[in-house]
């Protein structure tokens, strides 16, 4: 379903993604693990047409997202690291805009919105503004929205960041259910090793832009002779702390917090 070959992305002299190749089969859940700044988000951005690769090839459901951009876009849904909902609109309105953007026919839109909001336990609050939602509810809504146009692939970039264990648990239950029911291929990134171990069929560990290991969680643990995935991860990527440079988004996030309740 996803085929990536020799993918490279450079920003000036910095190589963010360095010769990465992997494949994800239909209906599989594939987890990308890596320290901060390892190149996970950059890879996802290239897969989802937001960034152009410097070199290498990508295939999504047999399509090249560079050439058949809109066709490829119809086939995937994405949940970003930062929320991308409109807080001034209600849950139902956010779903409606998404449906229109993806050319989902009116009737299907209505029917599927109801089905998904019920599944993600948001139906009762569909007419409330999203800015009144908790972090977990926003995440659930984003994932529900990502499914609205029945994508074949779902990208999840750190979907459980900042959620409490209850919400995380519930989220993965939902994702696994949809993965099984609709045979959706899932590619996710996360910092929580236990989640990857539990949810993912296969795992890729990326560090300094290079894919240093891939396989089932069992295989990765066995190869490194460790008990837990976390130990294997630390063995592969070392224990130095990676400090990312603060990007404008981080500064903006702080600014937004000061003004919370304002625009979002």
């Amino acid at each position: 379903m996803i085929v990536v070959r020799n993918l490279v992305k450079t920003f000036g002299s910095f190589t963010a993604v360095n010769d990465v190749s992997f494949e994800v089969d239909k209906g599989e859940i594939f987890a990308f693990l890596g320290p901060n700044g390892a190149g996970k988000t950059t890879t996802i951005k290239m897969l989802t047409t937001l960034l152009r690769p410097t070199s290498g090839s990508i295939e999504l459901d047999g399509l090249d997202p560079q050439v058949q951009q809109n066709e490829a876009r119809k086939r995937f849904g994405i949940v970003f690291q930062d929320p991308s909902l409109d807080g001034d609109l209600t849950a139902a309105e956010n779903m409606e805009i998404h449906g229109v953007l993806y050319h989902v026919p009116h009737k299907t839109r209505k029917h599927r919105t109801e089905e998904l909001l019920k599944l993600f336990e948001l139906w009762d609050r569909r007419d409330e503004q999203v800015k009144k939602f908790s972090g977990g509810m926003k995440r659930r809504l984003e994932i529900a929205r990502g499914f609205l146009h029945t994508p074949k692939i779902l990208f999840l970039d750190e979907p459980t960041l900042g959620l409490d264990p209850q919400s995380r648990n519930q989220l993965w239950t939902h994702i696994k259910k949809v993965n099984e029911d609709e045979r959706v291929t899932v590619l996710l990134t996360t910092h929580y090793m236990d989640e990857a171990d539990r949810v993912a069929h296969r795992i890729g560990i990326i560090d300094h832009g290079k894919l240093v290991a891939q396989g089932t969680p069992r295989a990765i643990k066995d190869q490194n002779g460790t008990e837990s995935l976390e130990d294997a991860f630390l063995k592969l990527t070392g224990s130095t702390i990676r400090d990312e440079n603060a990007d404008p988004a981080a500064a903006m996030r702080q600014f937004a917090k000061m003004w919370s309740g304002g625009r979002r």
Partner: protein
Amino acid sequence: MSVIYILWLRELKRYTRSRAQIVASLGQPLLYLLVLGFGMGPVFQRAGNGNYLQFVAPGVIGMSVLFSSVFSGLGLLWDRQFGFLKETLVAPVSRLQIMIGRTLGGATVAVIQGLLVTLICLLAGFRPVHFLTMPIALGFMVLIAVLFAALGMAIGSGLQDMQGFQLIMNFLVLPIYFLSGALFPLTGLPIALSYATRVDPLSYGIDGMRNVLLGHAAFDPRVDLIVLVVVGSILLVIGAHRFSKIEI
């Protein structure tokens, strides 16, 4: 079409739902209108230029349309860093449709804002020479709104942080306002200032409104119209181009 419509509708819904913001954004024009209008009135009168409130009202209307429309474009900055923009950029629709929807939405909001300020002006004692000319003034408002929403879009597409926003505010939006002749007549100015006011597109918008509302102005109304349409079209093209180049 439905994509443009839904994004236009989104801007409108956001506007009508932020009541506090509507009230706040009326504060500034109100200050200009009442404090300047009544404060400068006696001096203006003595200089033989007539009633200052009458004179400044179209300027204040133009100001509110300018601010509101530029800010709608700069709102991209918010949407870009952590908001809704990414959701629209990965959707299977062309960037042009997204840009048009947003720009028209921002312009519509700016026109509504302008109409609210017009209403306040009328309440404060502003009297156009003919009420029949109001629809033409509305036409000028629309032109100002589209022009500056496109400008905001062009700038907002490249903006990365709040510092940039401050810079644009102080070195672009405020000069556009102060040089537009919103607050003073454009005739008999020192040469340098006179040239500066002539390259400011807002001058022509406010001049056009003055022409239809008060019956006298600095330029020919046809010149006003042509400048606004031409500059507006150019900015729309630039805005669309820059929007299509956004990478996140």
